[in-house]
């Protein structure tokens, strides 16, 4: 082996070792909201939010000139560190500007925005979860339409992750008055084709030129609007108001609130401690 080959070999080995060591120890970048779920921090964040954010996102984050921030999966899934970064840096190429607020002021706002997106799984909802599970699957009253981890129907929203996506309040409201909030993709619709065929079900997707309907037999209809005579969209939910005792309702709520695809620990690690960020 010639000298220069030897040098090359050494360099290669050094690099290989270095890269293996690097793989062994991924850089631990831990960015955690120092205020967490502190109510006072969230309140301070609300005041801050009202000066500069509410103009576009609305005082309670319902969206206006800017995107909606309350009760929305995109925000629920976002790590605190990523949220901090978006507030600090803005979103390049959009109307979302960077911020010159202090770190603490931004963390207050992260706490506030988080408070607009509470997850039932973090709220420790009381009740007998296993009794709730039995109720959910018994007689198909719920599972006839809703699926949880592969068991159940398709005409209602899949609830496998509903505890992470909904606050306990909102879950309760959906059980008590199903019409209060209809999830996109599950609004009742009736269409009539030029040939006179009637199809009813839920709207999976609706553009100005096409509509996708999933009917009660769980069959998809991919329709072009030019082939249709009429379309009727309903505000009401397809879900009937369940007649439940308060105890049953609480048990069902306890069961649903625990439906999360991540364990609370996994979720906290990802969202609160910023180990990963949104792609």
């Amino acid at each position, binding site marked *: 082996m010639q000298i220069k080959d030897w040098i090359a070999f050494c360099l290669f080995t050094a690099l290989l070792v270095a890269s293996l060591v690097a793989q062994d120890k991924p850089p631990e970048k831990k960015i955690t909201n120092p205020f967490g779920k502190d109510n006072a921090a969230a309140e301070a964040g609300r005041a801050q939010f009202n000066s500069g954010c509410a103009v576009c996102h609305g*005082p309670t*984050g319902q969206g206006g000139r800017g995107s909606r921030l309350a009760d929305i999966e995109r925000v629920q899934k976002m790590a605190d560190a990523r949220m901090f970064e978006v507030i600090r840096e803005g979103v390049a190429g959009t109307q979302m500007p960077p911020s010159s607020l202090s770190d603490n002021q931004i963390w207050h706002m992260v706490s506030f925005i988080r408070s607009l997106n509470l997850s039932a799984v973090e709220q420790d909802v009381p009740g007998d979860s296993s009794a709730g599970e039995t109720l959910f699957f018994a007689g198909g009253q719920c599972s006839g339409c809703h699926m949880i981890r592969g068991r159940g129907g398709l005409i209602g929203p899949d609830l496998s992750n509903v505890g992470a996506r909904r606050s306990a309040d909102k879950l309760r409201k959906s059980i008590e008055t199903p019409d209060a909030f209809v999830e996109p993709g599950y609004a009742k619709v009736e269409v009539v084709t030029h040939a006179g065929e009637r199809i009813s079900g839920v709207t999976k997707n609706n553009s100005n030129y096409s509509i996708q309907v999933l009917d009660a037999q769980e069959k998809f209809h991919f329709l072009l609007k030019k082939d249709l005579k009429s379309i009727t969209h309903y505000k009401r939910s397809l879900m009937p108001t369940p007649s439940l005792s308060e105890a049953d309702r609480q048990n069902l709520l306890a069961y649903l609130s625990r439906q999360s695809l991540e364990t609370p620990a996994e979720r906290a690690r990802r969202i609160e401690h910023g180990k990963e960020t949104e792609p």
Partner: protein
Amino acid sequence: MKKTSSYGVWFSRTVWIKGLLPSPQGGRGAGGEGDRHAVVGCLALRIQQTCSASTFGLLLLLVLPLQAEVAFHDLLKMPAENWLSYSGDLTARRHSLLKQVNTANVGNLVPAWVYHVKDSKRLQVTPVVADGVMYVSHTNEVYALDARTGRQIWHYKYVQAKRHDGNRGVAVLGERVFFVSSDAHLLALHAKTGALLWDKEYGGYEQNSQISATLAPLAIDGKVIVGVTGGDCGMRGFVDAYDAATGKQLWRFYTIPGPGEPGFESWGGHPIGISGGGTWMTGTYDASQNLLFWTVGNPGPDFYGESRPGDNLYSDSVVALDANTGKLKWHYQFTPHDTHDWDAQEFPVLIDSIFQGKPRKLLVQANRNGFFYVLDRTDGKVLLAKPFVKKMTWARGILPNGRPDVIPDMDPTPAGRIACPGIKGASNWFSPSYNPETGLFYVITIEQCDIYTTSARPYKKGECYDGTGAEAIPTEPGQFFLRAIDIQNGDIRWEIPMVVKDTMDPWPGTVSTAGGLVFFGDNEGYLSAADARTGKVLWHFNTGQLITASPMTYSVNGKQYVALASATDVFCFGLFEPMSPAPVTLKENYEGSEAKQGN
């Protein structure tokens, strides 16, 4: 557009530097060039000395199409082959004379090419096309593309920018391309290379980091006109004019009058430096009066009016400015003492038409406050004002004196009050268009109400100054429409309703053509074409992306194209033509390497 018809003359100017050299025919470049001429002239001379004139001329002839520079009078022409400014011409009618694509054949429109704009999220640009070259801007960047193929010619990035807002487009004049950076610099690039010619900081970002710029500049005779964004966050808006050749400031008009100026009293002592009045969209220009029409944004704080008693001039107004001096000739305020953030940034479209029996110079606007206005643009008098939305709760109408007949107690409250139109307005900055043949004004319209909330909050440097905000009513989503408004009476002649969605993120606009079509973006990512007379949709294409820009049209070598920036790409369409294979005789040789075919 000054085409070079004789290759002799063309060569003597040399193709790259034409417009920088003194024109042998005394033609007008962008303006006086000074010493640059001499330097570039020497370069041209050297090229001529070192090359045989005939070979060099032949070479240029082979590799470059006929080049032309954009003269001021070109900018005044109705758009046809070229689309030379954000709105196609300086009137913002956005009506192209092209009719190769028309109501009979638009069904055959197919994609010609797609250009992906790297790192973009929500493109807001209307491309500009001059002689087969398309200029597309994005946050602090400009791309020049071959408009026939979508292949890049050059790319310029202003790397030192301190902000990264959206950008709506470029202006062209002479051989210069102008655009603004997010931190409010006006930049002039060479149209052939993208090389920076000059950079003028104009917004005062260092003093107030809330100031930015997003608009496409407006180029007129030897001048470039720009404005600023930031009226929600405490600033004093202005319109600026710069010398197109040198970047020297020519004048400034402040949209918030200072002490001693008329209108100062309309603020009740509110500090002028934080009163808003942004100028964040491109204005229009009437050469016959040498007047610029610039629209002014909201007063600050947006939703809290008690600290600024009075009309708050010239917020939510259109101002008519002398293009030579920047002096105000007249103004009209659409929404006096606004508390709903209804910036007047919708396009002030200039239309010459018989109106109420008389030929008139009109200024037409579908305002964010829900009224469709026809003004006499010689004096700013209101000739017609009529709601173009049904959801309207703030005014009963516009009185003969031009002031709104305001419904009391519609201001935002601390607990929130519902008012209509919503925060995005009945329309907004996305472009309307006007077809002189139909007499119809095509405008994307939003029927929506929002909850407006207010609070008193003193100004704090570095924070926004908006007095709280507005948001959607969760159970009452808004709805987008394309509406065709008869400018003679404000009647809605036809409309195309769009599907109701709970997201109001799109900002799509329109373009009208002599082919009897109106192209428009929708709230679901489609570019569509409707019959301009009837509103019947004749063609549509799913871009698969959010649309936050307005379409345009142009032609190259006799073929008409329609282009639209979607969220991250420029889509370009033309009539279907079967592809003809390349001739087998083509040999592409690479000097110094053995030709290898295949692998």
